[in-house]
């Protein structure tokens, strides 16, 4: 190694991650971001200042010791970096790909004050991918406690909670309603953003910790929460997410060619509709597709539509660009791939033809008024600005709510008027004793990493409970205040 050739740390710019070229990737489902090379990784790792009081850890919902793993990278110790990273995060290959780092760890990085922050997400992905390539090994485990815990849902919250509980020595069973584990990681996030092989590897890792996985078991239908306690589980964690689609309740929404983003993405991702007819589930995409919404799900749906061969894909969003909740990188990716943004626009009616198929959509222009409860400026329709949009497919990506199915015969579980379950933020305890909850089922649709954080906190609290360190369950009123 020629030491003299290495540039000074302060001169190194933030390293871009190689990606598939837009004109190529817009027609395939392979991963867009290709990951750092060893050289790029080394340069980027070198940029970290190793702050005495690192802000980045505070910015991370699962409080990964970021400087610790980057220090190992600076020292050229990949194995050490992996140990440091996995100590706090059970699913880093996923987080490195789908976390909104720009609003979390990277948002508070000191380097970001004058220039660009360390590309923490890209480094995290590098370490995780390296470790997967080496074959994962089982970390240190506590001795078996003999206690059984049921985890409902195998998405980010459930997987994280299960992995931590297993490491604490408990016997964990995950119950998954679908035929494949991963929750939103499998049915929601597309292959080109999060390869399913990665999810599979991370699930296998969780199973390697001794976690049992029962698929095709719908809690609330096949079994109820009461059944789980009757079957001998001493604690139950609910991580069933927010899987219920929302529609706009405008005329024409049930015409053929109108999808919920959930249906569209489930067909494409879980059912591999893009491989039809080799895989049996079809997905029908038209010539001109409107995707209504401005979040990550909207970007995913738009980019899938492009890849399925649509001539034109239009994002229809009622606010402006700055209010879009999607991850900045995904908005850029979508734009590069040719997705058109029709902002400050809201659908008011969908037109159908004689056979019941979508033939167009009536929209209205919006302007921004005063900030609303969410802190974002409220969109207000501009009177008389209606216009028709020539589309034959409409995908509604308007957010999701928790699925109430899990609450069937589940007495004592209080819910809010938004359908989310009432749970303490720091412990995940619900209003029913021995039932914890975390992730989107508590917060409503949020991020993978915040769900993982909640799963982690609940696992710690469940562990304290099973060890007899918790003697009184928080009363319902307190939980509601929380």
């Amino acid at each position, binding site marked *: 190694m020629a030491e003299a050739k290495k540039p000074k740390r302060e001169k190194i710019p933030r390293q871009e991650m190689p990606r598939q070229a837009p004109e190529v990737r817009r027609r395939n489902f392979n991963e867009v971001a290709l990951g750092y090379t060893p050289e790029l990784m080394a340069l980027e790792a070198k940029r970290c200042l190793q702050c005495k009081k690192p802000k980045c850890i505070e910015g991370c919902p699962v409080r990964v010791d970021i400087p610790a793993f980057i220090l190992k990278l600076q020292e050229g110790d990949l194995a050490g970096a992996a140990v440091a990273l996995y100590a706090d995060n059970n699913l880093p290959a996923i987080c490195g790909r789908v976390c909104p780092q720009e609003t979390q760890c990277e948002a508070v990085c000191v380097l970001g004050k004058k220039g660009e922050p360390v590309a923490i997400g890209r480094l995290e992905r590098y370490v995780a991918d390296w470790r997967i390539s080496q074959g994962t090994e089982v970390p240190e485990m506590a001795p078996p406690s003999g206690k059984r815990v049921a985890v409902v849902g195998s998405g980010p919250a459930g997987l994280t909670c299960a992995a931590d509980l297993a490491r604490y020595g408990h016997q964990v069973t995950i119950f998954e309603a679908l035929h494949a584990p991963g929750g939103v990681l499998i049915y929601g996030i597309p292959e080109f953003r999060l390869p399913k092989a990665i999810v599979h590897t991370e699930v296998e890792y969780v199973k390697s910790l001794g976690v049992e996985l029962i698929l095709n078991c719908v809690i609330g239908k096949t079994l109820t929460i009461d059944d789980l306690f009757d079957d001998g589980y001493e604690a139950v964690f609910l991580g069933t997410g927010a*899987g219920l689609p929302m529609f706009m309740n405008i005329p024409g929404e*049930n015409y053929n060619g109108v*999808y919920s983003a959930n249906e569209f993405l489930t067909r494409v991702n879980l059912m591999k509709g893009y491989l039809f007819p080799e895989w*049996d589930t079809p997905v029908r995409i038209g010539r001109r597709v409107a995707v209504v919404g401005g979040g990550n799900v909207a970007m995913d749906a738009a980019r899938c539509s492009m890849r399925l061969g649509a001539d034109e894909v239009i994002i229809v969003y009622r606010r402006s660009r700055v209010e879009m909740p999607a991850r900045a990188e995904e908005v850029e990716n979508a734009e590069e791939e040719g997705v058109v943004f029709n902002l400050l626009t809201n659908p008011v009616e969908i037109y159908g033809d004689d056979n019941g198929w979508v033939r167009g959509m009536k929209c209205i222009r919006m302007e921004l008024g005063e900030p609303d409860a969410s802190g974002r400026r409220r969109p207000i329709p501009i009177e008389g600005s209606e216009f028709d949009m020539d589309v034959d497919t409409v995908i509604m990506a308007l957010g999701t709510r928790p699925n109430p199915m899990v609450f069937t015969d589940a007495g004592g579980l209080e819910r809010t008027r938004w359908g989310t379950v009432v749970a303490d933020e720091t412990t995940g305890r619900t209003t029913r004793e021995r039932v914890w909850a975390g992730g989107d089922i508590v917060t409503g649709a949020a991020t993978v990493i915040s769900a993982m954080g909640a799963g982690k906190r609940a696992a710690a609290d469940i562990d304290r409970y099973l060890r007899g360190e918790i003697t009184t369950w928080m009363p319902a009123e307190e939980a509601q205040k929380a």
Partner: protein
Amino acid sequence: MYEILAKEELGTVNKLMVIDAPLVARKAQAGQFVILRVVEEGERIPLTIADFDREKGTITIVFQEVGKSTMHLGLLQVGDELASFTGPLGRPTEIENYGTVVCVGGGVGIAPIYPIARALKEAGNEVISIIGARTKDLLFWEDKVRAVSDELIVCTDDGSYARKALVTEPLKELCEARKDIACVWGIGPAIMMKFTSLTTKPFGVKTIVSLNSIMVDGTGMCGACRVEVGGKTRFVCVDGPEFDGHEVDWDLLMARQRIYLTEEKRAFDEFKLKCECDSGL
């Protein structure tokens, strides 16, 4: 997991399978459905439960080979396993002692009407059943349905067996002759359920139908199965599958059932071709 314990041909078109699924059988009730996948690459197929045995831990399904997936399912043999089998899904039939009820099963709909008739009979109702099909070969379970009915009327569209009539004809006669019919259940193809509902409507007899819309997950996640009932959008998988037939927007249901007609035909044709090649024809 999900082993096929028994297989039976019901005529030349319909097939019956008994599936080993103890968890599903433990909770199954009349009117509910399951979702199964034949192979890893398979689609999720919703099928209404035809029978269940809680002691043996089995679920009976009856299906007609109408496309690639059902044809593929029909090729499986006793001892084979399904890729997945989920349930029981949907709301069960609301079973009470209503008095006199009529259960109408058309074609493959004879299968799901059977456990409903049985449950209604067990609840103390006078059960009059009507089963019918296009032709004799499509009829099945006459004896089974008769065993749980106080009266059974059998008909075929072409008169090849029993009475030559559509199921709506004896239903209309019953409505005219008996003023004490409290409720009618009708299960079969959408068109048959539509006309069953139209038949009873002038008599003001409550009519429950079991809708067979396109589904993916079957747990309320996707909304593929949405229908309009009484002017409101409902999900068949979680709000149904049973609804008031007089309130259902039948044209919408039937339009939505045709969404993937082109793709379904393509998959079916390619699969039939592949089967012929594999069998060396």
